[in-house]
Structure formats: structure tokens, C-alpha cells
């Protein structure tokens, strides 16, 4: 009897995010925050644009500390990211959950979202989400590659050349970071709007029946 109850429970609260996705998500969140906040402190040492980041929201204190953080968290970010990418391709996670995404479906879901007609179904991404996740994955890869160009403009000079030289690679790195920060802002705002999405990223399971008002 308890078995049938378990089955019923599992049906009602199926696994939405597999363990690998949950672990890599939170490790990535920690590594990304370290990278971004220490990156802001590094930026402040020689600003590209006409502004600096308030010291209180940076990590590392002085430039040497910020660089130490950046180049330590880098390994966490890259190793964790590789685990996620290998899993995403090997398990079919990318193929099943992020594809297909067509311009027409993105436009349809985008309009529906703006008029609050878009239903949130736990475990299934709408087209706008799919596009955003694909873009943020590409930004994540891009921010690492542009970072490599800045770190090794001689040994990996072909990457710097591809990005228009060392100085330009810094701008590309900054813009990719800005895109990621933009994603994080939207991501957190949507979690705040639909809080029921938070628990499945921690426990893995979520209610399947649609009772969300968002």
C-alpha cells in the first residue's frame, strides 16, 4: 500500500530538476557571484567606461585580493560548467528541454507573458525561457573565452585576435558579464514572481498540478 502511495506521490511531485542540474546550478551561482563581484573590483583598477563599481559590492578588497578571488573561483566555474555541459549533451537535457525554439514560438510566448496570459508549467520551459537559457549558456561560454583572451594574450593570441585585440577583449568580457548580470536580475525577478519554482531547484521535486497564479 505504501508503495502505491509513493507512486502516487511521485506522480504528483515528480523530479523536475535532476541532482546534477541542482548541484551544478548552486555551485555555478556561488562561482558566478564570486567571479562577478571580484571582476568588478578588477575593473575598478582601470575602468573601461566612465564609472566604477561601489567598493561595498565588490569582492577581494584590493586589486591583488580581487585577482586571487577571480583566478580561484575561475576553476570552480569552469570545472562545474564542464560537468554541466557534458551532462546536458549526454543526457539529452539540452535537446529535450531547450529545443526546439523557433522565432514564432518565442514571439507567441513573449506576447503571452507581457499580457500575463502565459501559464507556468513546472518542468516545461516556454519558448522565451528556452531562448534565454540558450543565450545565457552561450554568454557563460563567451565570458570564459573572452577571459582567456585577457589572461593569456600572448600564449592564446589567436583568441585575442579573434576578439579584435587585447583592449577589445576586455570590452567583450565586460559586455558578456553585463549580459549575465542582466539575466540574473530577470531570473531572480521571475523566481520572486513564481516562488514555487525555487523549491524544485533545491529538493528536485515540485507539484505538477497547476495551481500557480503567475
Amino acid at each position, binding site marked *: 500500500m505504501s508503495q502505491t502511495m509513493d507512486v502516487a506521490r511521485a506522480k504528483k511531485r515528480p523530479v523536475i530538476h535532476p541532482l546534477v542540474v541542482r548541484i551544478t546550478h*548552486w555551485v555555478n*551561482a*556561488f562561482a558566478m*557571484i*564570486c567571479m562577478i*563581484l571580484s571582476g568588478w573590483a*578588477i*575593473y575598478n*583598477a*582601470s575602468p*573601461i567606461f566612465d564609472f566604477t563599481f561601489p567598493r561595498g559590492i*565588490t*569582492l*577581494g*578588497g*584590493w*586589486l*591583488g*585580493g*580581487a*585577482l*586571487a*578571488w577571480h*583566478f*580561484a573561483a575561475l*576553476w570552480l566555474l569552469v570545472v562545474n560548467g564542464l560537468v554541466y555541459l557534458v551532462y546536458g549533451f549526454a543526457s539529452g537535457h539540452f535537446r529535450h528541454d531547450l529545443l526546439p525554439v523557433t522565432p514564432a514560438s518565442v514571439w507567441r510566448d513573449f506576447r503571452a507573458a507581457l499580457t500575463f496570459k502565459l501559464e507556468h508549467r513546472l518542468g516545461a520551459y516556454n519558448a522565451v525561457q528556452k531562448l534565454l537559457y540558450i543565450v545565457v549558456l552561450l554568454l557563460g561560454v563567451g565570458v570564459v573565452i573572452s577571459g582567456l583572451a*585577457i589572461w*593569456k*594574450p*600572448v*600564449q592564446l*593570441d589567436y583568441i585575442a585576435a579573434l576578439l579584435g585585440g*587585447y*583592449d577589445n577583449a*576586455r570590452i567583450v568580457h565586460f559586455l558578456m558579464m553585463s549580459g549575465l548580470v542582466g539575466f540574473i536580475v530577470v531570473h531572480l525577478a521571475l523566481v520572486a514572481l513564481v516562488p514555487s519554482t525555487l523549491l524544485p531547484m*533545491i529538493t528536485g521535486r515540485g507539484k505538477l498540478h497547476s495551481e500557480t497564479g503567475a
Partner: protein
Amino acid sequence: MSTLPTRKAASKLIEFRPAIQKLERRLFLRQALSIGALSMLAGCDLTDDEPDAIDRVLWAMSRWNDKVQAALFDPNKLAPTYLESAITNPFPFNAFYSEARTPLVDGSTFKLEVSGLVADKTPWTLEKLRALPQTTQVTRHICVEGWSAIGKWGGTPFRTFLERVGADMRAKYVGFKCADKYYSSIDMATALHPQTILALDYGDKELPPKYGYPMKLRVPTKLGFKNPKLIAEIFVTNDYPGGYWEDQGYNWFSGS
């Protein structure tokens, strides 16, 4: 008898273990994600005399990054060179003091000291250094702060100098002591790189004091702070010599 209550308590605890574990997990997650934890981390900046656990991790990662960079370093890979029209003018002054405080070295009495694992420790006059084969390069100087500038340096290939003093090429480090109390060190592989030069000229003129008179090590495969100026002594060693900034937390290898 006295063990009884404890055992009872223990059996009670076992009943609650799943709940406690769940709570611990939740508390841990909250702590790990709170801004409070982040501001705690922000105090870790390598500057403490008694480094805490996170500072020690940061130092260990920096040593690991030294190894990775040494492995990535290709002794034959040349830094990009530029046309003279690309030279940054004026080339920025950079040191841990202001330009006005640059020490003035008297070139007529100056002698470069050579020590450590070398066969010939005879000091070098500037005339003797100028008599060595000379080369020039137009390369990009990249500062640890992020800015970069292109300059032209002339001098003797550092490999030639090391050969002339009979340096032990299997030694790990070449260290530099400077007239402005600056000091630094580089790995032997970089010291022998074809573009590493003991620069006596900036542009087509003798190095001015602000750019490091009487001589500067020009290393286009490393960050700017690994290019010591006002060099007074060069030594070859197997004992890690550190550096002015390196000892405070800048990554030692700092290769480009």
C-alpha cells in the same frame, strides 16, 4: 547508571535525525547564500598577517595557477609585435611611487652586480653591456590593472647576458634587486625567451629615469610588474625569491 539518560536521549535523537539533518541542510544553504556570508568572504584579501582558511585557499590556488601557467608557457611563442606608428605616446609612467620620486642613478659610476648560480660574478658597467649584441622590439605592455600600452625597447637579449655570465640555465629562478627598493623574480624558461631583453633604451634613446635608467628587464610575455626597472643586481637561484607585489598577493608567474 549515569549512562542511562544519555542513551535515552540518544535514542530520542535518532528519531529526530532526519528532521535535524534537513534543518542543518537548510541552514547551511541559507548561510551559504546570504549576503552576510559574502561580506565575510570580502574580508579575505591576502593582506592579513595571520591568514584565515580562505586566504590560505586563495594563496594555494595562486601557486596552482603558477604551475598551470608554466605548463601553458611556450618558450618559442612570440608576443605580437607592432609598427612604430602604434606606439603609445606618451608611454605611461608606473611604479609604487610618483614619477617625481624616481631615484636618479649615476651611470658613470654604476655597476650591475651579478650573484647566485653564475660562473662569473664580475660587475658590469653600462659600456660593457652596450658592447653586447643589441636588439629592439615594439611590444604591448599589459598592466595587472588591465590597461595596456605599446612601447619600443632596445637592449641585449637576456639569454645572451645569462650565457656571458655563465648562469646555471637549469636553475629555477632569476631574481632582480632594484635601485628603488623594488624587487621581483621570473622563471628560467621566461628568462631565456627570445623576446626577454635587458633594455638600455626606450624608443631610440637611452632609458630615461622614469622608464627605469640604467636598465629595465623587458618581458613581453609577462604583466608589467614583472618588468623590473632601475635594476642594480641580478641573481640566479633555486630558492623562490618572491617580489615586491608578489609577496603581497599578486600572482607570481603572471604570464601573458
